[in-house]
Structures are given as structure tokens and as C-alpha cells.
């Protein structure tokens, strides 16, 4: 399609992050989820007549952390406003939110889109609001069901500037944003679970046109992948329409995961009149400078800074570091391991390879694996010294994770020490040569990888305990000796 050359896509994202404070934004109900419906509800979050909200201090602290990490300017004064609309999951039929005096403005996130240059995506604002409940539809009895456990949970709304120019950039933005917020340990940021939600605004314009085209809002995307796909589809849809001389109506469209299309929901022109006005039940807030500086000082090293440091300190390549720093816990684990092993590259290989394989296999985070950096370091050092073979080392790691026992005791108990004694291996070498005539002939005829096969046989017969290097040398000696 010649589209891409003629048009430019303009994307902005609104991301809602659910914060993992112990209690709700404006009452003392627990925010834990997965419990039976309507069991974490009090008169305040139920919106009963006569109740009043009281602001959770920890909500502010988490919000300042996120705003600082996103490079925003924290406002000296902020207040809450009521956003008025009717919906059964919103008990008061208004949401306590922030309109014209939010917590923070003007931040930015640096992203690295695939195949492109580093780019900054502006953050317009960050504001605080309360979550609604959950509405479930039961078409069989044409009713809907409301669970208010989630009502009143603290939410941060992070609004980006319309700086993204492709669905890929939007995807990168989300990955980067999630990584930063997870580093702060203030949210699970899990789209599938709903602790991170994303709505997109997308329009197109002719390249070089300084103005903006009609904005379309896209909702109902339930994963980062869905965001990329939905925007990709929508971008094409809009470009096709404009090519045909059609106008693009300003509206809200829902992403249909099954059909892979966006479908119109309502005209944006008839959008809600939210009748924002200052929340009279909550006082205004002055965000004290000392508090902001205290929080700033306590921020963990953020992903980008960590990445630069890892490049410098550990000499790891750019592309490789991504894997290690994606999660702060993994990065911390890596550093602890390197402190003991002193070889950054080998530690990287082990974590990227074996450890992450176990994480994926078991669906566990690195800190849930019954493995601490000391254990991993021990295994790597034993393998490096030749106490156990590399193959055995992998088995020891698995056993360590399975049982929580120390590597040392596992090796001793199972007698897994590498066999590096020539004499002990002689018998096995002879057996392998005798039973693998074809490979022996191949090797003699110049095929080097036949040797690897023979080494493999030695490893098999010794239950992985033979020193593979030594086995290789002995085999070579034997075979070259026997002409």
C-alpha cells in the first residue's frame, strides 16, 4: 500500500495503573482481590447516603513515586474533582478524580522502537482517581451483576502526548512504562488481570500537515499485543477511508479480538458531559517539597540508568542487557550473583538460559524459585572449577530449585563430582569405541563432529559425570593412536 508514504499516524495513549496499596483510595477497605463478591465493601465505597471520603496518604506517596520516575513536574497544589456520570459499577454515580489541578504535568519516557532511533514520548499529565466496581453481564437472564470489591481502589491515570507515530512505538511505550512502574513496586501492571488498562487515541494526517486529523478512541484492548494489532488495523482503516475521500467521524471504537476489527461504539461528539466540579468533601492538598525530595531520594535505580551502568560495569552488549533488566528482581539477582562469581558473562548466560527457563516452566518469578544468588554462584563456581561438569551443573540447578537444598549437599549426596581421572575413564572410552564403529570410521575419515557424538556417548555412559574435555582428549588419543 502506498499509504504509509503519504500519511502519518498520530497516537496517544491513556494508561490506567491500579496501585497496590493495602487499602482503598478513600476508605479502609482492603484492596485484595480474588475474594467472594461484595466482601471488601464499606458504607463509604458503597456510596451509602451520608458517607464521606478520606484520602489515603500512601496513594499520594505511590503517585509521587510514579510521577517522579516519569520525569514529571509535581504540582505544589492539587485537588480532587467529581466526574459525574451514571453507571451501575459506580455507586455514587460520580467518580472522585482530578480535572484541572492534577498531581503532575510534563514528563517523558524514552523508548527504543525496533529498528528505529531512541525517541522521547511526552507525558501530558498524571492524575489520581478511584476505580469502579465490576459489572458482569449474564445474557441468559438479561441481567447484569455488580461486585463492588474493586470500587474505590486507587488508580493513576497517565496520559501521553500524541507523540507516537506507529503501533510499534505504542507497544514499546507500554513495555517501557510497565517496566518503570514495576521497578517502583507500586503495581502489578498486569493487563490480563486489569491492574493496567490502556485506551488509545489515533488519527492520521498527510505527512507534513501540522494539524491533527479526526481523533478516534479505541477501547477494549486486553494486552500489549492487542494494542499494537488494534492500532495497526485502525490505522489502515482510516487511511483507506481518506484515500476514498471519506471523512473520519470522531468516535469511540471497540477492538474485537476475535474478528480483529474495530467497531463503532458511540459518536464522540455525544460524549459524556461530566460536569466536573471541585469535590467539596475532600480538602485541597499541598504536596510538600520535603516529601517529594524524600521520595525522589528513595527511588530505586530506574531501568534506563541501570542499563547504562550494566553496559559500563559488566561489559554486556546492548541487546543482551534488555533481558536482564526487564525485571528489577532479575537485575538485582544478577548483580548479587556477579558479586560472588566475578564473571559477568557467565552469570548472564546462566540467568538468561537455565534460570529463566525454570521461571517460564514453572510460571514463577525469580524470587519465587527457592533459589538465591548464593546458590547459583556456587553452582557456577563448581562448574568453572571442574568439580562438576556443565551438564551436571544444570541438573544440580534443577534439583536445587525443586528441593531448596544447597548445591553442595546435592553434589555430595548424589556423588555427582566430575570424573577427571584418566584411569577411571579408560574402560568407558574403550567401550564407546568398540560399540560405535561407524562414528569411529567417520572421525578417521575427517569428520570432526563424530568426535562430539562419541564424547556424548561417554557422557551418557557415565551419567554425565565424565569431564567432557578430558573424554574428548582421551578419545582423540585412542583413535589417532590406533591406525
Amino acid at each position, binding site marked *: 500500500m502506498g499509504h504509509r508514504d503519504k500519511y502519518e499516524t498520530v497516537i496517544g495513549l491513556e494508561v490506567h495503573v491500579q496501585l497496590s496499596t493495602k*487499602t482503598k483510595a478513600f*476508605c479502609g477497605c482492603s484492596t485484595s482481590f480474588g475474594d467472594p463478591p461484595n466482601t471488601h465493601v464499606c458504607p463509604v465505597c*458503597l456510596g451509602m447516603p451520608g458517607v464521606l471520603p478520606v484520602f489515603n496518604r500512601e496513594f499520594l506517596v505511590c503517585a509521587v513515586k510514579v510521577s517522579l520516575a516519569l520525569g514529571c513536574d509535581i504540582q505544589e497544589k492539587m485537588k480532587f474533582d467529581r466526574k459525574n456520570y451514571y453507571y451501575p459499577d459506580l455507586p455514587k454515580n460520580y467518580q472522585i478524580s482530578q480535572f484541572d489541578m492534577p498531581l503532575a504535568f510534563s514528563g517523558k519516557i524514552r523508548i527504543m522502537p525496533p529498528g528505529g532511533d531512541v525517541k522521547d514520548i511526552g507525558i501530558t499529565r498524571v492524575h489520581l482517581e478511584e476505580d469502579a466496581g465490576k459489572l458482569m453481564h449474564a*445474557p441468559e437472564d438479561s441481567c*447484569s*451483576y455488580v461486585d463492588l470489591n474493586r470500587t474505590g481502589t486507587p488508580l493513576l491515570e497517565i496520559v501521553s502526548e500524541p507523540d507516537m507515530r506507529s503501533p510499534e512505538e505504542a507497544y514499546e511505550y507500554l513495555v517501557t512504562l510497565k517496566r518503570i512502574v514495576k521497578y517502583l513496586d507500586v503495581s502489578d501492571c498486569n493487563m490480563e488481570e486489569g491492574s493496567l488498562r490502556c485506551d488509545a487515541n489515533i488519527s492520521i494526517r498527510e505527512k507534513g500537515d501540522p494539524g491533527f486529523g479526526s481523533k478516534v478512541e479505541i477501547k477494549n484492548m486486553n494486552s500489549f499485543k492487542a494494542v499494537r494489532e488494534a492500532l495497526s488495523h485502525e490505522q489502515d482503516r482510516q487511511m483507506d477511508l481518506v484515500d476514498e475521500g471519506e471523512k473520519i467521524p470522531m468516535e469511540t471504537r471497540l477492538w474485537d479480538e476475535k474478528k480483529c476489527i474495530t467497531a463503532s461504539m458511540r459518536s464522540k461528539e455525544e460524549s459524556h458531559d461530566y460536569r466536573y466540579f471541585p469535590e467539596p468533601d475532600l480538602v485541597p492538598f499541598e504536596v510538600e517539597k520535603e516529601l517529594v525530595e524524600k521520595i525522589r531520594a528513595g527511588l530505586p535505580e530506574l531501568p534506563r540508568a541501570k542499563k547504562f551502568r550494566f553496559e559500563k560495569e559488566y561489559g554486556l552488549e546492548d541487546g543482551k542487557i534488555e533481558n536482564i533488566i526487564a525485571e528489577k528482581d532479575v537485575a538485582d539477582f544478577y548483580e548479587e550473583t556477579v558479586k560472588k562469581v566475578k564473571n559477568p558473562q557467565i552469570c548472564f548466560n546462566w540467568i538468561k538460559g537455565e534460570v529463566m527457563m525454570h521461571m517460564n516452566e514453572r510460571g514463577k518469578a525469580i524470587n519465587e524459585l527457592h533459589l538465591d544468588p548464593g546458590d547459583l554462584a556456587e553452582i557456577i563456581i563448581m562448574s568453572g572449577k571442574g568439580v562438576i561438569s556443565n551438564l551436571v551443573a544444570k541438573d544440580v540447578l534443577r534439583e536445587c530449585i525443586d528441593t531448596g537444598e544447597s548445591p553442595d549437599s546435592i553434589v555430595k549426596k548424589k556423588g555427582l563430582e566430575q570424573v577427571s581421572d584418566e584411569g577411571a575413564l579408560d574402560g568407558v572410552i574403550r567401550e564407546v569405541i568398540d560399540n560405535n564403529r561407524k562414528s569411529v570410521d567417520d572421525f578417521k575419515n575427517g569428520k570432526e563432529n563424530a568426535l562430539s557424538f562419541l564424547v556424548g556417548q561417554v557422557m551418557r555412559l557415565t551419567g554425565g559425570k565424565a569431564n567432557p574435555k578430558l573424554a574428548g582428549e582421551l578419545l582423540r588419543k585412542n583413535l589417532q593412536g590406533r591406525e
Partner: protein
Amino acid sequence: MNKESINEEVVRHIAALSRLSLSDTDVKKYQSQLKNILDYIEQLDEVNTEDIPPTTHVLSSMKNVFREDVAKDSLSQEEVLDNAPSRRNGFFRVPKVI
């Protein structure tokens, strides 16, 4: 101040925003009463409010009231649903949302 008088169409729109549906007679009645009241309220235009800050909270000393992030007892599910006009299996039950 908006000099356009409140007319019936506006009354219907406002009623819809407030989830009230008014009969034609009611629309006429409210329209005339509201117009009367709003005409009176026009007098606020006489007050010079340039550079005057709005009062959103009457005692200006009020600011920074917090609660700590400590869990308190919630109502039991039974207490939550006790006043509900319709319920099932621990949920509030409502007609379908289109």
C-alpha cells in the same frame, strides 16, 4: 452569563443528564419555573469578580487531611446487600446494561 433563555429542549437535555424523564406538562412547568429563577440569578452579573478567587472550601485553613494505609473492617456481604432491591449469589442484580 449566557443570555440565551432556558428552553424546553434544554430542559429535556438536562433531565436526560440527570436520569429524570419528564412528561411534556412537566417540561413546560419546569421550564417556566427555572427560567424565572435563572432570570433572577442574572443579578450575579452585577458583581465585580475580576481577580477574585472562587471559594471551594469555606475555611481556607483546611488542607492535607489524610488517613493511613491501614485496613479497617468492611461490612459483611450480607450487610452490603441487605438494602439491595435485587440480589443474587452475592451480587447486586440490575437490568441489562445496553
